[in-house]
């Protein structure tokens, strides 16, 4: 989680520093892009989206199974196995199929700019990160919550 968060910050740093030798930065930003829009450029394309998704998946996995309550402890180990494998899948896709840190040679002097859709405040701020955050939050926590409530159902009246 910390490693992926650092990688995400590095990508943001590449956008803020106009590092156009990185292909993803060159494809989704340019020098005239306002400062605040460079944040949304981080998830403007598939590569950055997958990196953000991997980070959120790792973050909520750590939150869900890091300190399990007694109620869900029996499931927490298996939950760690499957949630770590899901995280590994996303990180693997990011690394091997859609790497946001791939470079260009020679480096262009300016980028291609951000998609006009993502320049609107409603589009750049709300839908994409919130959808991913909801998905990543729901998947591990719902698993553990479902387990504990299922126990209550099957244990009968107290």
């Amino acid at each position, binding site marked *: 989680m910390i490693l992926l968060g650092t990688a995400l910050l590095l990508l943001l740093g590449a956008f803020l520093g106009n590092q156009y030798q990185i292909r993803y930065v060159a494809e989704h930003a340019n020098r005239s892009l306002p400062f605040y829009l460079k944040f949304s450029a981080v998830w403007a394309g598939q590569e950055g989206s997958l990196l953000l998704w991997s980070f959120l998946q790792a973050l909520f996995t750590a939150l869900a199974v890091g300190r399990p309550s007694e109620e869900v402890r029996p499931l927490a180990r298996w939950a760690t196995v499957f949630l770590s494998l899901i995280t*590994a899948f996303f990180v693997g896709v990011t690394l091997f199929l859609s790497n946001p840190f791939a470079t260009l040679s020679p480096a262009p002097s300016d980028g291609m700019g951000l998609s006009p859709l993502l320049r609107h405040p409603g589009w750049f701020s709300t839908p994409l990160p919130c959808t991913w955050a909801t998905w990543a939050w729901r998947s591990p926590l719902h698993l553990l919550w479902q387990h504990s409530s299922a126990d209550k159902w099957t244990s009968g009246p107290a």
Partner: protein
Amino acid sequence: MMIATSGYFLVSVSLIAALYTALVAWLNAAPHKGKRDGNVVPQRYGLPYGPR
């Protein structure tokens, strides 16, 4: 180039860390079978036979 190399390195290590976490959690979660405390057959199964 420094950012690209560092980012590539971090994502690679993240993949190894996620796989390692899954493996260790799997080994901890799986039921222990086989040799334990010198006995091939675990005593908790209550089997009347087997090497002591």
